[in-house]
């Protein structure tokens, strides 16, 4: 689908699936989808499907942060989920996705890393969140971020044996300390129109993209611009207004 073709319809206010510009497709959040993980969730936005899983392990802290646990967010764009994704090392798209989601969680201070400290300078918990795509029908940013935070909400610590090793087969009822539930919203600009929840064709045709994470107070806590066309201050302001409204909607879905 060419940019010109998409634009022709966007200007008329028409999207391929008949949605309004500011409407999400149907969103479902399903926590606890993998028994093996310490926490997990499946998120569907329309036909887009991602699974996020949390793994916990005991590690030695970094020398410069002896009282803090570690947080790592990784995204896998599996070749299973789109004909455009290839096997092998993560490409720049996967790296950007994981880093943008990482910043939303880190900068909202969603996880109090000091609470992950077991023994100062010796043992801390590492929280590893992996986001895996099952079907890419667009908007992996919002789906991935939502899955990551839903999986963290679902995560519990495993038991620790007397010798200090982790007993993965046994889970406690102690949840990973979550202080905030950041919500990530992506708005794209095609021509002079702003759209949310883009389809793959719309993503291909976008001029600019702005992904914004909001904390519980609905304040901006992380942001990333994508796309090749620069944005004016008026654009940015309008995008923030739209995203902020949508963040309220998504937060409700997550709390349900």
């Amino acid at each position: 689908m060419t940019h010109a073709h998409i634009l022709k319809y966007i200007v008329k206010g028409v999207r391929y699936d008949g949605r309004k510009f500011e409407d999400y497709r149907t969103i479902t959040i399903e926590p606890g989808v993998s028994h093996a993980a310490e926490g997990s969730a499946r998120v569907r936005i329309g036909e887009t499907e991602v699974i996020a899983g949390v793994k916990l392990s005991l590690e030695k802290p970094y020398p410069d942060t002896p009282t803090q646990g570690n947080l790592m967010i990784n995204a896998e764009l599996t070749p299973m989920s789109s004909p455009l994704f290839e096997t092998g090392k993560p490409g720049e798209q996967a790296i950007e996705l994981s880093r943008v989601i990482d910043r939303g969680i880190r900068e909202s201070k969603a996880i109090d890393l000091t609470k992950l400290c077991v023994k100062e300078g010796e043992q801390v918990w590492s929280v590893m969140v992996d986001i895996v795509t099952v079907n890419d029908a667009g908007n992996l940013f919002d789906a991935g971020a939502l899955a990551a935070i839903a999986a963290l909400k679902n995560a519990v610590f495993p038991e620790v044996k007397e010798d200090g090793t982790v007993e993965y087969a046994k889970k406690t009822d102690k949840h990973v300390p979550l202080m905030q539930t950041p919500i990530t919203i992506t708005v794209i600009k095609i021509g002079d129109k702003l759209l949310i929840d883009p389809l793959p064709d719309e993503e291909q045709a976008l001029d600019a993209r702005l992904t914004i994470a909001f904390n519980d107070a609905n304040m901006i806590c992380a942001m990333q611009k994508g796309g090749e066309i620069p944005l004016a201050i008026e654009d940015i302001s309008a995008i923030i207004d739209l995203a902020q409204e949508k963040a309220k909607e998504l937060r409700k879905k997550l709390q349900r």
Partner: protein
Amino acid sequence: MAICAMAAAGRLRAVKVNKMAAKAVKQEYPKRHDGRGWEDLRKMEAKVGVIPRADGSAMFRIGHTVAYAAVYGPRDLHPKFMQNPETGILRCRYNMMPFSGHGERVRPGTSRRSQEISMLMSKALLPVLDLKEYPKSVVDVFVELPETDAGTRCAGITAAAMALADAGLMMKDMVTSLSMGHYNGKIMADIDGYEDCDVGISDIPIAYIPTLDKFSLLQLDGEVPKEDLLKLLTLAKKKAMDIYKVQQQALKDKFAEPKVK
């Protein structure tokens, strides 16, 4: 004994020690820990067409082992030097999601284990396909596991066969796969992670093609007398037919004519 999913997740050494101990003095295992009979399969679920972006797809669940399979192709094969002018080729990729193992996180990317399994999967599936119609092309099969409890390659093959059918490829039959077990002279079907890793039951993954009445995957880890193995394979055929029915039903569910109200 099989390097189980748990071991793959970084507990290889501990499990090996466990198994050696189990071998030295074989513990009693008078009945299955989850209450199943020796020949019983775990609860199964199958669904076809779960990944709309793919040309064909399926999900297969057996107990707490879940496999997704997506088929792309026949499509152009790159790099070009891998192309075969006589026939299309089948390429499988087996991958455990990083959080899918019961031990530590599985590092993303291929491992020796996943590469071997990928190869065995394509060998298990190829006998039912005829890719001569598609020279220079590739049919890609991607298998991803969100949760594992042993028998992952078997669940992967079972899902992949359904996905190939969903993709509309000409097939001689389905391929149906499960993991058999042997312990203290006892034969059992569909062993789970506890039985594989903690009890130390010999793991015998098989794939069976009903119309050909032949096996296209056969592996064995452990000591098994020949007579027991032959008995075990006979049982495997019978149990494979139970899985076959689940596969067929899943395909029928997708392609059945919608009922007119």
